[in-house]
């Protein structure tokens, strides 16, 4: 990696850590960064640091805020890196991680769980499970459809298949929703997206998928640069294009599905963060993917801080925040940058 790339990644790490500290300190209970660091250090062996936090404050930090911050990091990072990877594999800057049916499939799964799951929805993780399954099935359907026929797995064929599957699944979802008007509010709330406050449970649920998927995507970052010259030329350079595309789509889909399963449909992060990185640093996927992961993670935590403080104690759906603050910010970047590709 170039010096510039290393510096950019370091900057991304600093941003992520800063955002996480903001997420841990901001809230109704007044707790400082120093106290949090001391408290964290007190849990480490050999350091002999004593925490100054009261048991209540300690619980607020480690049982309420920390899981929410970590969930924000995981979901934000995953959506952003998946968006960047999808854009590379489809050579299409307008693609987001929801393109191939993740959102529509998860939406249908969640709606079915809420509408028919009855009291079971709250327990047994029925909702995230249904959303995850729906998302994965939606993409599998789109991929199967896009791979059939003469156009076989060309990026355009897959995108079209995605559009088809999304319309179809959305139609079913709308119908089910219509038939169960009493669950409308719950479904709507899920669709807008939120980071839950249910402790570490959701973090444990999605972390393995997010970590493995991100690692697989990062491994493919150089190959995504090769795909940028087109399928045929990449093939003449010795790359098995179909295999790479499948691996990237599967990894991005599994990770996004896991993120969506616990957070609902948080928009904007997956399309805007990778573009921000491209405009600010450069277009090579060697840098776009790792940096999207870091910036997306920090960005979503900050958005969540805003979502839960602006109208405190009421919460604004986080998807509203990501779009409301992200769009103008991106507009400024777009205007001041020299090239947009």
């Amino acid at each position, binding site marked *: 990696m170039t010096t510039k790339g290393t510096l950019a990644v370091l900057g991304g790490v600093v941003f992520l850590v800063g955002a996480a500290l903001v997420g841990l300190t901001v809230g109704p209970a007044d707790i400082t960064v120093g106290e949090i660091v001391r408290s964290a250090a007190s849990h480490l062996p050999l350091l002999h640091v004593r925490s100054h936090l009261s048991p209540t404050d300690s619980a607020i930090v480690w049982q309420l805020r920390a899981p929410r911050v970590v969930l924000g990091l995981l979901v934000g990072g995953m959506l952003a890196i998946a968006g960047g990877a999808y854009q590379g594999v489809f050579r299409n800057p307008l693609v987001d991680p929801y393109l191939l049916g993740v959102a529509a499939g998860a939406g249908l799964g969640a709606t079915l769980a809420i509408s028919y799951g009855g009291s079971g929805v709250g327990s047994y993780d029925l909702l995230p499970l249904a959303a995850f399954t729906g998302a994965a099935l939606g993409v599998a359907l789109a991929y199967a459809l896009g791979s059939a026929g003469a156009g076989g797995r060309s990026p355009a064929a897959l995108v079209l298949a995605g559009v088809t599957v999304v319309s179809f699944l959305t139609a079913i979802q709308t119908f089910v929703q219509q038939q169960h008007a009493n669950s409308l509010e719950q479904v709507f709330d899920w669709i807008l997206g939120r980071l839950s406050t249910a402790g570490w449970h959701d973090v444990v649920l999605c972390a393995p998928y997010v970590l493995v998927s991100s690692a697989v995507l990062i491994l493919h970052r150089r190959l995504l640069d090769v795909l*940028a010259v087109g399928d045929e030329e990449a093939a003449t350079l010795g790359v098995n294009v179909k295999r790479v595309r499948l691996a990237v789509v599967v990894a991005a889909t599994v990770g996004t599905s896991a993120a969506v399963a616990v957070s609902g449909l948080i928009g904007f992060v997956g399309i805007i963060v990778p573009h921000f990185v491209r405009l600010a640093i450069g277009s090579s996927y060697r840098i776009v993917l790792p940096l999207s992961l870091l910036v997306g993670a920090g960005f979503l935590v900050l958005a969540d801080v805003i979502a839960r403080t602006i109208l405190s104690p009421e919460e604004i759906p986080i998807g509203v925040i990501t779009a409301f603050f992200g769009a103008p910010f991106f507009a400024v970047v777009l205007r001041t940058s020299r090239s947009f590709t």
Partner: protein
Amino acid sequence: MIELASLGVRLGGVEIVDGVDATVAAGEWVTLIGPNGAGKTTLLRAVAALVPYTGSARVGGDEVSSLPRRELARRLALVPQSPLLPPAMRVSEYVLLGRTPYLGAFGYESRHDHDAARRALDQLDLGTFANRALATLSGGEQQRVVLARALAQEASLLVLDEPTTSLDVGRQQQVLELVAALRERRGLTVLSAMHDLTLAAQYADSLMLLSGGRLVAAGPPSEIVTEELVAEHYRADVRVFGEGRSIAVVPMRS
């Protein structure tokens, strides 16, 4: 180096290349000529294993369709007619892509790979362009950059599809002289497709005239670029001046 036997390509139910037998010896420069739609590009794509074919196409003794992609990429570098150039990619990054066949699936370029890419840049006088974005280059510069990527591939067979389209006459000459010099220096075998009959005749050791997917004539340029053959297959009225390698094809107005 290349052996084609009864090579045929059907695309969308149409026979695009039909029963072509030909060989290109190592170190030779063979150019495909023929009217639009004769099957020149498709033949090159078959040799690069980019389209399914019938018959046989061997490079270095092995059937291209059964060679692993990576192995074929080490033997054959293709410069397509209209390459896709990611606009924001730097020239140096683009040329470095030529090293892909030598890297493991998730590996990264070694010093040796960077050196090979730099040599390719220097040979094409692109050293000062290394940090430029591809979108900022002129047509001629882009052509050289694509050629540099192919050179960085260090394959012994260079396949060029219309390497001089969209270049002015000076640039055309420069690019072809460059290929000729590189061929000499690196002992490359060159298979190209060209429209300009004069240039094709001046640079190639031998020509293959394709028409309607069939190989209708092959041999030294002076035997292939004749007023009769051009009239028959291009439906063009031309005069051919000069002899040997220094021939010129001039269209006549009736």
